[in-house]
Every structure is written in C-alpha cells, then in structure tokens.
C-alpha cells in the first residue's frame, strides 16, 4: 500500500513539474509557457482569480491576508510616494526634470520592461531612470534601495491599474526571455534550489513558518515595503535576497541576468494589473 502511494505521489510531482523543470528553455514558446503556468496555478489554487495573484502570498493565505489588509489601510509606503513625487517635480541642475525623459507622464509602468532592439537588451524602469539622470548630467542612483525606490513608488502609484503587457517582438528578444527562463530554473548554490523549486513547485507550502508565494503575479507590486527591511526595496533587491537564501552568489541588480529574469517573470504575469507600491511581511 505505502510504496504504491509513494510511487503515485512521486509520479504526480514529476508530471506537475516536468512541464517546466525538466525541459530546456527553448523547448516551449512563451505563449505555451504562459498557458502551462496558468493552468498549473489555477489547478493548485482553485477559485483564485488571475488578478488576485497581484497580491502575492496574500492571494492564497487567508490568515496573513487579514493583517496585511489592516496594514494597507494606512500604507507604510505613503510618505515615500510623496517623496517620489517631489523628486519627479524637482529639476536637475540643468533645469530639466524626469518628465523630459518620460513624456511628462509618471504613469510609465506599463511600458517596462521592454526589448530595445537597437541596443539588443532588456530595458527596465530603474535602468531608464538612471539613463535619464546620466543624460542630464546627474549621478546614477543605487538600484536596490534608497532614493530610486521613492521615485519608483511614485511612478508605480500613478500607474496603478495598468495591465502588464510585456512583448517579445523577435528572435533576439526571445533569446533574452529564454535566458531569463533558464536562470529561473537553474539549480544553484549549496542548497541546490532553483527559483522554481520554491515559487512554482512549492507555491502555497510552508518553508518553516513562511508560505511561499506563486511565481504568477510576482512582478506587479514593486517597489515593495517589507517590514523585514523596514523600508522599500526593488524587484532586483528581492531577487538578490532569494539567491542568498539559496546560498548562491547573487547577480547584481540591473545586471543582464536579472534584467532577463525580470523580462521572463513579468511576461508570466501578462494581463495582471500593476498595483505597486505594496507592503509585505
């Protein structure tokens, strides 16, 4: 009886994860991936509508959701959104503002990340912010935390409700997507985890007392105010933290690897609304 059950459980696990974990990145198209991931999560969390995934772990855990909703009544990031608005409106030394790089519209979330075909690279919003600064003779900002998160918080706030719509326009863009996908599934570090070990294969399960959020929707809420950080952090700050948890050497925020990872992970959330900034445990 027992061995039989174990064998079936093992088979199910393989069938469920084989669709992603055991394949080469180039085996499936982005459209196929989108469908496979969705079907997988919809089956795993019946009754959770697509848009709910924007709320991370709170989409699937009632207990922590209640205290999170109480926090969001008086969001800890509110003053930081205001600081960001001040940054947006304050001219650089040359008299120009961020608006000069962003069509005078802070609601830019939906335009990033995108494939820049001239430069053959994925451009993220934080990268575009620093390119704007450098073009106007200002020093670039640090990418993980600090002032850049204020500006990102304001721009995200102004963009709330925009739908994620990442496009993969050609072969070169597809190569960047596939690179992001293989980074997502590569086992690394002393603990031999991949990102997918936790956020796909174990989504909804407890790692000690923490419940693991599903990969679907993870791109929507940035920057995030984490009580553990006591402040705002960027998407790539979280990538770095998770890689350290894997006891792996993390890539740098805004490295090509992390930008490609963001490209892949954000594409997976296509159709979900941006709702940053947000708060997390």
């Amino acid at each position, binding site marked *: 009886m027992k061995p039989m059950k174990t064998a079936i459980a093992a088979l199910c696990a393989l069938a469920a994860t084989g669709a992603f974990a055991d394949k080469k990145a180039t085996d499936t198209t982005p459209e196929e991936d989108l469908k496979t991931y969705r079907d997988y999560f919809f089956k795993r969390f019946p009754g959770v509508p697509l848009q709910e995934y924007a709320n991370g772990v709170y989409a699937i855990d009632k207990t922590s959701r209640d205290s999170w909703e109480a926090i969001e009544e008086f969001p800890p990031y509110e003053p930081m959104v205001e600081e960001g608005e001040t940054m947006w409106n304050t001219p650089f030394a040359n008299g120009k503002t961020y608006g000069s790089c962003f069509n005078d519209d802070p609601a830019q979330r939906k335009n990033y990340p995108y494939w820049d075909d001239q430069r053959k690279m994925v451009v993220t919003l934080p990268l575009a912010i620093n390119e704007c600064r450098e073009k106007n003779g200002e020093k670039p900002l640090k990418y993980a935390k600090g002032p850049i998160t204020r500006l990102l918080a304001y721009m995200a706030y102004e963009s709330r409700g925009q739908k994620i719509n990442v496009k993969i326009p050609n072969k070169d863009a597809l190569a960047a997507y596939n690179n992001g996908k293989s980074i997502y599934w590569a086992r690394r570090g*002393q603990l031999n985890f991949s990102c997918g070990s936790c956020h796909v294969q174990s989504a909804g*399960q407890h*790692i000690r007392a923490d419940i693991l959020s599903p990969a679907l929707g993870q791109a929507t809420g940035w920057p995030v105010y984490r009580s553990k950080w006591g402040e705002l952090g960027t998407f790539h700050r979280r990538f770095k933290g998770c890689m350290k948890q894997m006891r792996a050497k993390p890539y740098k925020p805004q490295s090509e690897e992390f930008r490609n990872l963001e490209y892949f992970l954000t594409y997976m959330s296509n159709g979900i609304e941006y709702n940053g900034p947000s708060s997390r445990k």
Partner: protein
Amino acid sequence: MRNTARHATIALSLAALFSAASLMPQVASAAGANMAAKGKEIAWNRKKGNCLACHVMAGGNLPGDIGPPLVAMKARFPDRKKLFDQIYDATKNNPSTRMPPFGKHKILSNADIEAIIDYLYTL
C-alpha cells in the same frame, strides 16, 4: 531574541536527553543517546540540517510542509543505508526533488548524517 530562545530550547532538550540516558537502564548505550542528541541539534540547526524548514519532526516549532512528516522512522526505514542515501543526495531518488543534497554539497559531513540518522530513529 528568537535565536536565544531556540538555543535555550535546544539546550533544555539536550539536557533532558542526557539525563534520560543516564537514568534509564533500558537505553542500550549512553553513547547512542549522545549521538541522537547531537544529531537532533544538527538536524534542527538552521545553518546545518534545517530539516524543520520542510519536515514535521516531533517537538519542532512551526515546521514546514514541503516534505513528508518524519515519523515512525525505524518502522518505515529499517535499512539505514536508504536513509543515508536520501540525506546524502535526494536527487538520486527523485531528480526534481526540492530536498538539498546535504552530503554531496558538503552541507553536512558523513558523521553529521550518521548522527542525524540516530536521532531520526528516535522519531
């Protein structure tokens, strides 16, 4: 704070094990109980086994549920080697396992794993 509390708990349970070993004649060898106590410490230590991240183990606070509960180990794993292999490199049994290959990746030494098995046999 939490760390201190946990260390205190471990120290207490160690003390309990030691005193049990010395008081109870039916324990085959104090050395065996010693090993089990050491194995428990390694298994529960977050920097070492951290088995509670994924497994229920009797007495462990806020365990995870990524792996099955580690109960009735002696009855379920009479073959010591099978346990050793599962802890040394779980990918052998299941290539897409989420359990870290503790021996192969040098997270634990063979002696650590042996001590953990002594502890598992008390569960």
